[in-house]
């Protein structure tokens, strides 16, 4: 009985939040930008005017008709490298978020629902992990795993995992003593079924918002780590690494470092706009505040 009611409630709410999202100008701009970047990432090799790894011109050529955003210190086309870099950064954002949410959400669910020593154990772990800013935590994981773009995804994912756990735990605590959950328990549903069908359903909206915002955040942290030399390694066309390479010749060739940063800015901005839009659309209370 109870699952049917829950389903009915979500079913009627579905179109209304989507409509609210569509009416939000900022969110639509963000969504369009994000879709644009996804298309670029998928068709990067076809769209790129030049081979991103080939040295095809003299180095440090300023932006021109042939090389729209100039060439880097090895004579590679900056524009083509930025297009290819989109693929790397978007993949990094998505995979890091999955790697953070996948352990984080069940941990929060277990802590909130079971309570007792399980909650104490998981909560202490979350507190300790959150006692470090996530970039520093990611640094610890990179130090242990070694610098590479794959390890950056793992590091950023694990470093942001406690955020999901804390969020889900909070949502679970808010509903777990409510009559409908008690009813589901009395009806004899096994704990895992109650957790997934009755409790987790209530946490999906905030978790979705957090995940969207975290895609942008993960791209920022990942690019930062690559800039430090702790992520992608040459000759990968990764945006943070490209800025680091261009830093050496910043005075003579400003375009090498600056354009990849603009690319990051637009992708992260798009993720944040979509995330904020989702939050406003999914949570009516937030809507009143803004």
């Amino acid at each position, binding site marked *: 009985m109870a699952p049917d009611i829950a389903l009915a409630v979500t079913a009627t709410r579905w179109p209304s939040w989507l409509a609210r999202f569509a009416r939000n100008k900022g969110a639509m701009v963000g969504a369009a930008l994000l879709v644009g970047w996804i298309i670029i990432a998928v068709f990067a090799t076809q769209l790129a005017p030049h081979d991103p790894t080939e040295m095809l011109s003299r180095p440090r050529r300023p932006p021109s008709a042939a090389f729209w955003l100039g060439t880097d210190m090895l004579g590679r086309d900056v524009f083509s490298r930025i297009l290819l870099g989109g693929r790397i950064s978007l993949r990094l954002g998505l995979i890091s978020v999955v790697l953070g949410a996948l352990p984080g959400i069940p941990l929060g669910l277990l802590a909130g629902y079971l309570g007792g020593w399980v909650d104490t154990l998981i909560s*202490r*772990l979350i*507190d*300790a*992990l959150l*006692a*470090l*800013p*996530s*970039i*520093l935590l990611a*640094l*610890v*994981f*990179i*130090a*242990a*795993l*070694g*610098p590479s773009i794959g390890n950056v995804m793992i590091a950023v994912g694990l470093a942001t995992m406690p955020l999901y756990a804390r969020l889900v735990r909070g949502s679970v605590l808010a509903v777990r003593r409510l009559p409908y959950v008690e009813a589901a328990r009395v009806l004899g549903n096994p704990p895992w079924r109650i957790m997934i069908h009755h409790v987790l359903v209530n946490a999906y909206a905030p978790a979705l918002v957090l995940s969207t915002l975290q895609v*942008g955040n993960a791209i*920022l942290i990942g*690019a*930062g780590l690559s*800039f*430090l*030399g*702790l992520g992608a390694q040459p000759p990968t066309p990764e945006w*943070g690494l490209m*800025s*680091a390479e261009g*830093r050496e010749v*910043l*005075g003579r060739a*400003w375009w090498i*470092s*600056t354009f990849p*940063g603009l690319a*990051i*800015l637009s992708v*992260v*901005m798009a993720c*944040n*706009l979509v995330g904020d839009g989702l939050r406003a659309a999914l949570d009516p209370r937030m809507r009143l*505040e803004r």
Partner: protein
Amino acid sequence: MARYVLGRVAQLIPVLLLVSALVFAIMHIVPGDPAELMLAGAEGGAITPQRLAELRQQMGLDEPLLVQYGRFVAGAVTGDLGQSVRYRVPVTGLILERFTPTLQLSLAGLALSVLIGVPLGIAAAIRPNSWLDLLAMGAASLGAAMPIYWVGLVLILLFSFQLGWFPPAGADSPAALVLPALTLALVSAGMLARLVRSSMIEILSEDFIRAARAKGIGERLVVWRHGLNNAMIPVVTMLGLQFGAMLAGAVVTEIVFSRPGIGRLVVTAILQKDYPLVQGCIVFLASVYLLVNLAVDIAYAWLDPRIRYGT
């Protein structure tokens, strides 16, 4: 108040222990052997098993992980964070040597961020939806989406290479601090402005503000005395978290501006696989961050008596 402070200090100890245990555990997941690295660095490839075993025993690496951790904590309490594999000197000395420039940078960044963010937030709150409000909220969204190293590079391009106002690198003069601090501030001031704005708007809609207005004391006094005093309370808490963001941002900023500091130290340590040094730096930064947040909590309790009496 004294009881509150003591209680909070007592709570800090288990958190510190747990954080250091976590960092220690993560650093030991992957079996990189510092003893082997140390020998490879010193004796140019000729690593005899005998010499290796000797050194491992000397460094305590042959003991169970828990014993090693116990020793690490016992050392840390007395200020001994172990020996750097590359530099062959105590980690604590290396950290303390480089902490001053990092602290200067973080504090200067925080101060600039407050100087930009708080007035902007207040202005935005007084006139919601004005152009100033739009500017403040736009700045907040931009700040949240810019990679920090990129902000630094753009500032160097503008203010060092184009205008020549500030040096692009180093830490020898107060002028060299301006651009790195501005980098940190630009990334976080927007967020601060957004927080001040929402806190201020909330306070300005409260009954006691309406009462103050009804009393006829003048809008300026209402906003500055009654509004701001109360709106600043959540902002103060935020400053503790912001300080952590500053420390983390300093790591990247120090590389961009070739400044000495803990950030540079920890990044080179990671690249050189100097595990004891990495571990020491991170545990040290975490402790500083936790202590600052403790100080903020105490300041908060002092500002807001409701916290002290536990309601």
